């Protein structure tokens, strides 16, 4: 282990993120990586047991990221009726705890997709929390570098344009209570706090979507807690069960007090 994890929580401050020297990466041994994960687990789950299970949750991620600031992640959950929550952790990111999903009664948590930043060669972990309180983990190794500190390629002002705008695409047959797949797109720079402002030459403060609720009618689909490891302009794929009346409502906040809410009508059945 190179350093204790200080900036682990989902509500860390920008100060904790000041550009740190590379502390882990391509050269770490398996033992170092395992020790790191043990430490992270303890800080998130305390003394609870986390069981290894390659089948409970399968991680789809590129072995080598094409773009470290946008790494697509797919999480497939085997026993979806038993799922209560889902954690996603990027061990060697400056803030490893990337996302936590808590599913509600309208969820169909068989598959979740999201896009993340990866700052280093790292293990990523998904942990499923079951309704009976078990924690089941699986891991995958991803090669990427610089995803959190990489400049956005545009001015901060431009990156903030349309902040809070949302779109949702639906697929699948919305009839008969069958699950509907949905893609939620949110305009938000999700500044990591490690990117330099072009004008002031200071680091742009972290500004990221920290909470997001998706509901169908009055039923919760999922509640998401996010962090700086979520890529800019977050895109999340999920599924829900359209029982009762819609619409789908998305309410999001960011750590700087931004708050947005949008409603989407689920298209009616085509046959």
């Amino acid at each position, binding site marked *: 282990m190179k350093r204790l994890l200080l900036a682990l929580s989902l509500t860390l401050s920008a100060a904790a993120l000041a550009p740190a020297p590379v502390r882990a990466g391509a050269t770490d041994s398996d033992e170092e990586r395992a020790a790191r994960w043990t430490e992270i687990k303890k800080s998130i789950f305390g003394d609870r047991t986390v069981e290894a299970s390659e089948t409970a949750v399968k991680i789809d991620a590129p072995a080598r990221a094409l773009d470290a600031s946008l790494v697509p992640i797919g999480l497939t959950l085997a026993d979806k009726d038993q799922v209560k929550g889902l954690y996603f952790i990027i061990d060697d990111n400056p803030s490893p705890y990337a996302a936590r999903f808590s599913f509600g009664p309208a969820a169909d948590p068989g598959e979740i997709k999201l896009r993340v930043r990866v700052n280093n060669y790292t293990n990523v972990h998904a942990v499923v929390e079951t309704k009976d309180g078990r924690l089941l983990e699986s891991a995958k190794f991803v*090669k*990427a*570098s610089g995803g959190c*500190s990489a400049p956005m390629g545009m001015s901060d002002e431009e990156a903030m344009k349309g902040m809070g705008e949302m779109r949702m695409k639906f697929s699948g047959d919305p009839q008969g209570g069958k699950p509907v797949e949905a893609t939620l797109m949110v305009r938000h720079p999700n500044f990591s706090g490690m990117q330099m402002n072009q004008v002031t030459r200071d680091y742009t403060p972290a500004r990221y979507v920290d909470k997001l609720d998706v509901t169908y009618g009055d039923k919760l689909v999922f509640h998401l807690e996010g962090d700086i490891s979520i890529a800019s302009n977050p895109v999340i794929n999920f599924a829900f069960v359209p029982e009762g009346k819609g619409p789908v409502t998305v309410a999001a906040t960011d750590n700087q007090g931004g708050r947005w809410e949008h409603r989407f009508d689920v298209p009616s059945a085509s046959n």
Partner: protein
Amino acid sequence: MTGARATRRQALFGGLCLCCLPTLGRAADAFSLDEVAPGVFVRRGPDAEATAENNDAIANIGFIVGRDGVLVTESGGSLADGHWLRAEIAKRTSKPIKYVLLTHVHPDHVFGAGAFQGDAPTFVGHAALRGALDARGDFYRQRLVEILGAERTGPVVYPTLEVKEPAEIDLGDRTIRLTAHGTAHTNCDLSMLDTGSGLLFPADLLFVGRIPSLDGSLLGWLREIERLKGMGAAAAVPGHGPVRVEFAPAIADLARYLTVLRDETRAAVAAGRPIEAAVRTVAQGEKDRWSLFETYHGRNVTQAYQELEWE
């Protein structure tokens, strides 16, 4: 271990260098300059990644000798590469180096500039280059230092002449026409036309043979291609590829790639195909037409997808 280091470097540049590739390191002193038109000298950069062996000398760099002085068309990918070019210029002319072009923010095109600071030339760049260097210069420099060491990497040099509207540089017997482009390959692409030779220097708005890297705007690049075509040049010096090409077929190849990338990415978005599937399927018909396709194409699709999914 060697392989692992190379791939790590590749990943370090990862999102941003875009002009780097494993292996194929050639020693800088193996390079030579071609006189592609009277008074116009260009060194071909190999289709390679920045390595400790090649000094990041991977772009086409060179100079134009005018009656009143020398204009450096591209400075090089490192201080060491710039020193090499500086020495080659001195072998051919004693005229003063009056202008050094910084064609865009990518490291293989700007880190040679430090070698010319002693000549006190005018460093010419797009009006958006300063901001781009502010945002990325240190990031690029740190990663290049990891490969070459600080001494061979050199400083981040800022433009002293910022071009926004079309501008001209008079070298006495030839005029250089400068165009600051809208966001295309990057957000700060500067091209030039040498009236002496009729040669167009589109810099990285034109890749030949080597897969283009998209780091600005796909739709913008297609627009700027039309603008380049309107300049009426018959021949060009691309940013990567042969030192001199016929312009029309070369730009047609690039436009074809970008058009297929646009159309197939749009189709993927419309079909609800996710980004990780799109990177495997979009524009695969272009695979055998470009070197380094496997290394950079997927990233281009990622960039294109992000741009087009909000249409």
